């Protein structure tokens, strides 16, 4: 064992060390930028990042197993068969390959977040926690991947290394973080499926899409909501990743950049929202000072006013209710969403007022 580790160490050259150093730089910079608002222990964040670095192992492992298999059984090389089949269609093979790469990478990053949540469910107590963890897993993956790319570029010379370093540091690392972050958001929402589902119930609304998922999974609303959001998040991450890869392969760098910038804007908006930052308690610690049937009337009214867009009234009532029932996560969710909606409405009105005459808008509330 020691002999093999010593042998392994003896094969490490300065190029390897330089590649590791270069790969660490963008991961550190992006990690600092994207984690600026995170208040979790640094040790935990480093651990998740390190887990993320290991995600290249299964991807490379699958490739190694596949190559070993086809060496023994050349007839089993279905990749070669597919490649041959698509040889007459321009770009088809390369597009398929990059879509496959995008999908497998996102699935592996998803497994990291899932693993962390399964082993320590208390670590994800807000939707944003999930986003942060997914981003770290993505940065870890990008770090490991960059080592391989930088080593390859070094063999081609300084110019190749420089351009690879700049492009991958600025774009690809951020892109990996964004793809994972989008998934992280949906995973976070799925984790609090009970609260989100109850919110929909008090509003008396169930989307036809959710009805479809419920029928498909043959599960109750909460479980169907969870499955649907995990799958949707994974599909969104895989889809955007595949699109990014395809644009790069077709040399449409500007389009690839637009994908990353749009994801950055969407993710920043989601993470800045009150609902994203809302800390779910997940346990009834204080109990309510209201009778359940009376609280139900209030919750129903909150749902009704929320539907009517009476956000200020929802905010006021939710604040009163939370004083009486501090562990009511659904009321907190209504409060957070109402604040987000109100801010969104104010922003919309501000933008609208730039292009229209003063309409003397004021929001009248009763309570």
């Amino acid at each position, binding site marked *: 064992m020691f002999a093999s580790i010593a042998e392994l160490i003896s094969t490490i050259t300065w190029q390897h060390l330089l590649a590791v150093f270069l790969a660490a730089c963008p991961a550190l910079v992006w990690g600092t930028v994207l984690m600026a608002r995170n208040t979790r222990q640094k040790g935990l964040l480093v651990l998740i990042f390190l887990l993320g670095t290991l995600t290249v192992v299964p991807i490379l492992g699958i490739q190694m197993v596949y190559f070993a298999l086809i060496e023994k059984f050349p007839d089993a090389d279905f990749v070669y068969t597919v490649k041959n089949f698509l040889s007459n269609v321009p770009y088809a093979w390369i597009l398929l390959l990059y879509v496959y790469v995008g999908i497998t990478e996102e699935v592996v990053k998803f497994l990291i977040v899932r693993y962390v949540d399964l082993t320590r469910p208390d670590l994800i107590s807000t939707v944003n926690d999930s986003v942060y963890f997914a981003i770290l897993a993505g940065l870890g993956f990008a770090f490991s991947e960059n080592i391989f790319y930088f080593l390859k570029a070094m063999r081609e010379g300084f110019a190749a290394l420089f351009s690879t370093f700049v492009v991958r540091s600025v774009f690809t690392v951020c892109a990996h973080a964004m793809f994972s972050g989008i998934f992280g958001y949906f995973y976070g929402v799925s984790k609090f499926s009970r609260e989100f589902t109850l919110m929909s119930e008090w509003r008396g609304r169930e989307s036809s899409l959710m009805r479809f998922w419920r029928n498909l999974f043959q599960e109750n609303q909460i479980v169907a909501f969870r499955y649907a959001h995990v799958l949707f998040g994974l599909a969104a991450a895989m889809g955007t990743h595949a699109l990014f890869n395809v644009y790069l392969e077709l040399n449409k760098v500007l389009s690839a950049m637009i994908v990353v910038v749009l994801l950055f804007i969407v993710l920043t908006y989601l993470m800045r929202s009150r609902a994203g930052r809302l800390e779910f308690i997940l346990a009834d610690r204080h109990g309510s000072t*209201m*009778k359940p049937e009376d609280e139900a*009337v209030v919750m*129903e*009214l909150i749902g*009704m006013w929320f539907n009517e867009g009476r956000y200020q009234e929802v905010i*006021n009532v939710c604040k009163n209710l939370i004083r009486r029932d501090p562990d009511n996560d659904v009321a907190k969710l209504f409060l957070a969403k109402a604040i987000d909606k109100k801010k969104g409405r104010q922003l919309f009105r501000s933008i609208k007022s730039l292009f229209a005459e003063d309409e003397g808008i004021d929001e009248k509330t*009763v309570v």
Partner: protein
Amino acid sequence: MADVQLTVSDLISTTTGKSSKIFTLVGQIDESNVMPLVEKIYAVIKEATPGMGYIFDLENLLYMNSKSVGYMTDFYNQIKTRGGNMVLTKLQPNINDILSVIGLTRIIPVAQTLEEAKNLV
């Protein structure tokens, strides 16, 4: 299916001469009966002279659903825009609890007795 009865009576203050209406509600308000009840109250408010005072006597009202609580805020709005005044009286503890969480008891005066309500309206 719950049942609710509404009685509307007139009141003229012997001291100020100001006229008011008393809505006495008995029973339970739920989804099945809320709309006819609300329409009756709206009709009374609409037909009454502006500046009229309204007392809601809820001593025997045992349950209010969310919709009826929502309409209560709307009655208050309607009455206020017509220059009137509204007072709630003799609330059951559960209804008082709901209305206080909604914040209505902070804006609509609540009286313990009918006499007190007459003075407030």
